[in-house]
C-alpha cells in the first residue's frame, strides 16, 4: 500500500507539472547534499564575487541545510559552465549564476546551448553600465565627450572593455551607431583591469559596471559621464565630493540613446521539478532580505529588480531577442 502511495505521488509530480506550478512555494523539497554553484566566469570577476557573497550569506545566516560550493567553469567564455549544467539533467543539487554570456556566448562562439535548455530560477538583480573617462580628461559631461568623438576622425578614441563580443563591446557598438563614428575597442580580461587601464591613461573611456570602477571614482581618478539606463540610479550616498550614484545623468538625456542592463540570474539544470525550483526561489528571496545583500546592492549600484517564474521567462525571451538583434547588427554572430 505504501509502495503504491509513493508511486502515485511520483506520477502526480510527473503529470501535474503545470498544476503544481500554481501551488504556493511550499518548499517541501530540501537539498540533502552539497549544492554546486557553477560560475561561468573566472575567479575575481563580478559574477564570481556575487556568487561568493551569496555563498557567504547563505552560510552565515544558515539558510540552507547543506553547503553551497562555488565552482568556476570559465572555459569558452563561460560555455563550459553552461554545458555542464545543461548536461546535468534532473540534478537539483546544481545551480548556475549567469551574466550576459548566457545570450552572447552561444551566438558569438557557436557553443551549443540556449537558456531554454536550462531551468530559469530567478533574476537576482540587474547590473548597470556607466560611461567613464579619466578624471584628467577635459570632458565634464557626456555631451562634451560625444562632441569630441564626433569632431575627431574614426578610431581616435579608445574604449576598453571586458572580453570580446560580449556586453561591453555590444554597448560600444551601440554607441558607435548612435554617434556615427568608430571607436577602437580594446578587450581586457577583467573589469578591474579595464578600470586601471583607464586610470593609467592607456584608454580614453570604459563602460565599466559601477562596482568595478567605484574605488577609482572615490579616489577621483575616473569620472562617470552617464548611465546606460532609462532612469537615474536611486542611490544617494555621497561617493566623490558631493556626487553620488544618483547624480549621474542617463545617457539618453545626454543625447546618447543607448540602454543596456546585464542579467544576474540563477538557473538550474533541465528536468528538475517545480518543487525544487520553488525551494531556490524561496532561498534567494530570503537572501535578498539580509543586510549583507543590501550592502552589496548599494556598493555596486545594482538595479534590484527581482523576478521568478513566468515573468522571468518572458523577460529572458525579450532579452534574448534584443541580444540577437544587437549582435546581428554588430556582425558578432559566429560563422559570419
Amino acid at each position, binding site marked *: 500500500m505504501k509502495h503504491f502511495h509513493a508511486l502515485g505521488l511520483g506520477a502526480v509530480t510527473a503529470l501535474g507539472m503545470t498544476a503544481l506550478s500554481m501551488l504556493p512555494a511550499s518548499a517541501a523539497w530540501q537539498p540533502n547534499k552539497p549544492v554546486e554553484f557553477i560560475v561561468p566566469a*573566472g*575567479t*575575481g570577476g563580478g559574477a*564570481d*564575487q556575487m556568487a*561568493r557573497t551569496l*555563498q*557567504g550569506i547563505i*552560510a*552565515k545566516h544558515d539558510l540552507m541545510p547543506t553547503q553551497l560550493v*562555488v*565552482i568556476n*567553469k*570559465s*572555459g*569558452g*567564455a563561460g*560555455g*563550459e559552465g553552461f*554545458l555542464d549544467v545543461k548536461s546535468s539533467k534532473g540534478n537539483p543539487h546544481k545551480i548556475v549564476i549567469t551574466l550576459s554570456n548566457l545570450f552572447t556566448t552561444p551566438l*558569438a*562562439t*557557436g*557553443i551549443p546551448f540556449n537558456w531554454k535548455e536550462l531551468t530559469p530560477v530567478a533574476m537576482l538583480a540587474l547590473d548597470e553600465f556607466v560611461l567613464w573617462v579619466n578624471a584628467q580628461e577635459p570632458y565634464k559631461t557626456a555631451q562634451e565627450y560625444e562632441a569630441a568623438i564626433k569632431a575627431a576622425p574614426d*578610431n581616435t578614441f*579608445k574604449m576598453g572593455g571586458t*572580453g*570580446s*563580443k560580449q556586453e561591453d*563591446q555590444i554597448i560600444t557598438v551601440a554607441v558607435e551607431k548612435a554617434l556615427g563614428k568608430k571607436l*577602437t*575597442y*580594446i*578587450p*581586457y*580580461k*577583467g573589469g*578591474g*583591469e579595464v*578600470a*586601471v*587601464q583607464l*586610470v*593609467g*591613461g*592607456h*584608454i580614453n573611456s570604459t563602460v565599466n559596471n559601477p*562596482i568595478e570602477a*567605484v*574605488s*577609482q571614482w*572615490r*579616489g577621483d*581618478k575616473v569620472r562617470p559621464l552617464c548611465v546606460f539606463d532609462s532612469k537615474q540610479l536611486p542611490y544617494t550616498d555621497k561617493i566623490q565630493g558631493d556626487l553620488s550614484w544618483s547624480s549621474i545623468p542617463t545617457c539618453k538625456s545626454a543625447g546618447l540613446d543607448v540602454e543596456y542592463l546585464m542579467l544576474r540570474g540563477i538557473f538550474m539544470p533541465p528536468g528538475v521539478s517545480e518543487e525544487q525550483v520553488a525551494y531556490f526561489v524561496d532561498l534567494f528571496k530570503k537572501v535578498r532580505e539580509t543586510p*549583507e545583500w543590501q*550592502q*552589496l546592492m548599494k*556598493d555596486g549600484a545594482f538595479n534590484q529588480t527581482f523576478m521568478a517564474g513566468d515573468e522571468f521567462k518572458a523577460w529572458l525571451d525579450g532579452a534574448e531577442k534584443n541580444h540577437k538583434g544587437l549582435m546581428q547588427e554588430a556582425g*558578432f554572430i*559566429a560563422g559570419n
Partner: protein
Amino acid sequence: MLDNFINLYHGFYIAGDPFNILLMVIGILLGVIIGVLPGLGGANGVAILLPLTFSMSPTSAIILLTCIYWGALFGGAITSVLFNIPGEPWSVATTFDGHPMARSGRAGEALTAAFTSSFVGAFFAIVMITMIAPLVAQFALQFGPAEKFAVYFLAFASFVGMSKEAPAKTIVSMMIGFALAAVGLDMVTGQLRLTFGITELLNGFDFLIAVIGLFGIGEILLTMEEGLEFRGKAAKIDPKVVWKTWKTLPRYWMTSLRSCIIGCWMGITPAGATPASFMAYGIAKRVSKNGKNFGNGEIEGVVAPETAAHAAGTAAMLPMLALGVPGSPTAAVLLGGLLIWGLQPGPMLFVEQAEFVWGLIASMYLGNIVGLILVLTTVPLFASILRIPFSIIAPVILVICAIGAYTVNNNVFDVLMMMVFGVLGYLLKKTNYPLAPLVLAIVLGDSAEEAFRQSLLASGGSLAIFWSNPLVSSIMGIGIVAGLWPLIAHLFSKLRVTAQPA
C-alpha cells in the same frame, strides 16, 4: 616615510594579538597542505575559505587568508623538489635543480634552500612595500598592453637559449607550448580556435595539467625504466641539515639580491610570479660561474627562482591594495574578499583604512617569520618521504596527480589529458627535447599574445607602439640584449682571446 614606520608599529600591535598569531599558524599550515596538493593552488584555497571569514574582523580575516597564501607559496616547493611535480606554476623553475638534488640524496638541502629563499624574497618585497608603497603604485599605472608585452618578451628572451639541446628541438618544444596555449577562446576576437568542435577543448590546455603530466607522470615512467626505486632512497635524514645549508647560503647573496629585484619588479608590473621565477633562473644560469652545472642539482638554481617567485608574489599585493588590480589569481580572490568586508581597494584605502592596511603589512612580516619556522621544522619529515619504497609511493603519486589534475578545472577530461602529457613527457625527455621552453610557452604564450594584440589594436596595427615611450623601449631593448646575450658573450670571449694571445 617616518609616518610609515609609526603606522607599521601600530600595525604590529594589531597583528601581534594572540588570536591573530593563532590565525597565522592555522593559515600557514592550511596553506602548506594546499600548496602540496597540485591543482589546489593558493587561489583555490583562499576562495574556498573566504566565506568562512565573513564573521571575522577584516584584519583577522585577511591575516588568515594571506597566511594561507604564504603557506601555499612555501608548500608549492615541496612536491617540486621531492617528486618533480610543481604544486604551483611558479615552482616549475624550482624543479629544474631542486629535483635533481633530491635524487642525489640532497632533498633536505634543497628544501631548506627553497624555504629560506622564499622567505628572503618575501621579506625583501615587504620592506619595499613599507618604504615606497605610494611610489610603486604610480609606477604600476604606467603599464599598458605594450609595456606588458615588453615584460613578457624580456622574460622569454632571458630564458631561451639556455638549453644544450639541438636548436630545432628547442623550437619545436617551445612552439608546441605556444600552440597548446592558443587552444580555446581567443580573447581578442572572442572566437574559438583550434578546438575542432570538441567541447572538452573549450577551456584550452591548462598549464598545470600539462606540467603534472609532463613532469610528474613522466618522472614516474622514467624511474620505472631505471628500476624500481627512487635514487634518493639513500638520503640520510639529518636534523642538522638546516644549519648546514644555511652556512652555505650567504655565498649566493648576489643571486638572491638580483632575484629579489627581478621578483619585486615583476610583481608590481602585473606580470606575476611565474615569469619572475623563470627569468631569475635564466639569468642566474648565465651569470653564475656554476652556470654549466645548472639542471644537475645546483643549489643556486633553487635559490634564484624561489627568491624571485616569492618576492613577486608578495609585491603583487601592493597593486591590489593601492589600485584594486590583482597581481595574481590569489590576489584577485582576496580582492573580492575586501569588497565583501566592506573595504574598497583603491587609491583611498591607504588613507581611509590605514589601520587595516598597516595591520596587513605587519602581518606579512610576522606571517612570513612564523611560516619559515613552521616549514623548516618539517624539512626532515618531508625529506624522509623519499625513504618510502617506490612501489608504495608511485601509485599514491599517481592518485595525487589525478586528483590535482581534476581539481584545476573540475573536469574529468583533464585527468585523461594529464596521462597523455605524461607519455609525451617521457617520450620527449628520452629523445632529448627540452621541456622547460614548452612549459614557459604554455604559461606565458596566451598573455603575451593578448598583450601584443591589444597593443596593435591601440596603435591601429603599427609596431611602432613598442618603441613609443622610454619605458617600453628600454624594456624591449634589455629584452633584445638578453635574447642575443649568448651571441654577445661568445663574441666577447673571442675578443679576449685575440686581445691576449696566450
